[in-house]
């Protein structure tokens, strides 16, 4: 072995996607359990990235770089997880709701969820309720993460939840809502299961929902 596995941890923290990809590739070629890479190195690295973000040591560029490094590794690991029936902590469908094209907040949450061991299906922006319904069914999602930046698009969150109810899948998923204008009262009002005001606490709560201790 010409590398140390803790370099994987370091490469995610520093956002070095080439190194994270190379180490993962080599480790898998040597038969190292892919879940060991995820659980012992990549998830702790993203936990540390989240801590630094919360402490204002990392900002958006650094977080996006770390997420990119982690994704470079996960691109190699995910096919093996599927091949050997290894389950992620949970499956999340994420998107910015209909009428809203702002995506930086949603991207940060999706990146941190992926770093936390979730499989994330990012539907992008301006996502219609029926697209969320279809994605939940297709991916058998445990959680749906809805984002909005504008007060004018917040009603789309309720329309999406209503669409889940109409489709008979409301009880199958936990609905998380977030974004600058969203708050707990609004979440309660529209019948969402959770509101969180930052990506790190969203991941912690998502893990709780999946019965994983944080």
């Amino acid at each position, binding site marked *: 072995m010409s590398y140390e596995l803790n370099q994987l941890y370091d490469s995610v923290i520093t956002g070095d996607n080439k190194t994270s990809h190379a180490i993962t590739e080599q480790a898998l070629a040597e038969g190292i359990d892919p879940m060991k890479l995820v659980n012992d190195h990549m998830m702790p690295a993203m936990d540390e990235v989240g801590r630094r973000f919360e402490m204002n040591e990392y*900002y958006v*560029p650094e977080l996006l770089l770390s997420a990119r490094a982690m994704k470079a590794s996960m691109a190699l690991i995910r096919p093996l997880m599927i091949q050997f029936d290894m389950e992620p902590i949970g499956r999340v469908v994420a998107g910015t709701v209909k009428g809203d094209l702002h995506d*930086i907040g949603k991207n940060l949450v999706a990146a941190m969820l992926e770093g936390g061991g979730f499989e994330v299906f990012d539907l992008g922006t301006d996502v219609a309720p029926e697209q969320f319904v279809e994605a939940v069914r297709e991916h058998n999602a445990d959680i749906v993460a809805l984002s909005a930046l504008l*007060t*004018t698009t917040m009603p789309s969150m309720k329309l999406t939840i209503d669409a889940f109810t109409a489709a008979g899948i409301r009880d199958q998923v936990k609905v998380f809502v977030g974004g600058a*204008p969203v708050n707990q009262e609004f979440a309660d009002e529209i019948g969402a299961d959770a509101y969180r005001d930052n990506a790190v606490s969203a991941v912690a709560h998502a893990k709780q929902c999946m019965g994983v201790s944080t």
Partner: protein
Amino acid sequence: MTYAGNLIGQRYDDYCRDHRILVEGNLAMVERYGIDLLSCCCQPFSEAADCGAELEYYDNQPPSCRNHLLKEPADLLTLKRPDPHGGGLMTERIKAIELYKKTAGDTIPIQGWVEGPMAQASDLRGINEIMLETVTNPEFALDLMDWVTEMEIEFAQAQIAAGANLIGIGDAAASLVNPTYYADEVAPREKKIVDAIHDAGARVRLHICGSIQGKYEAIKNLGVDLLDIDYLQTVAEVREGTGSTQCLSGNIDPVRGIKDSTPRQIRADFAKAHEEAGENFILAAGCEVPPETPEENVVAMFDYARSAS
């Protein structure tokens, strides 16, 4: 912005595209509430649209740009700087200023608007792309911000020539980068715009959406006449960071503190912010007043301002 459009019963997409509607909305705000400013700010993509970006319009919210103009960094090499008088959305803003001047004369200050270097770079390239490129392709990020800075200076000068007394600089994305990058790379470019506006005889308002914690010293050194703060910091913290002579405006949470609040609570929140700020303070929401805000809450804002001034 959106509140003014609602007040005159106009769709917001029309408000953004037709200077006559924007002017009518803001004059109605003056008549109804006695507001002390005529603003041209309506949406952040005017310059990007005139560069060639395609916008998507909505009935009741600002437009968005789904496909950013600079698909690749190399596209910057062929990007043509728009003429502020070329008949696009930048021209609409200039026409709004001219109409304000014709209608209100010199009785109420007129505020023009430009995007800051980080925000406009994001509008042209995409927020996710430019954030990554501040690290992975720093030369491009700086080249783009330089290009933007020159465009915004020209646009600001055109608005001042049309009659603007004050130019707002909106640099929303500047809150997303770390304080060192902001101080070393973003603030010097903002400063160039600030200095050019001052040289042209107008004053400067700076608004950065989001948290500006850790950036106070760099912001203080910009020499802006008015620092408009979002709701994520207390006024006391910003006052301490920027000094007693910096004029501040803000910063009540637009949703929880204005739209969903009560007149009594709004007066209490403004009193607290006012006390923390002391002198050199203008009462305002932490960002936009949401269009769904009950009128009694808007009235409460102005009541407090009048009673306290």
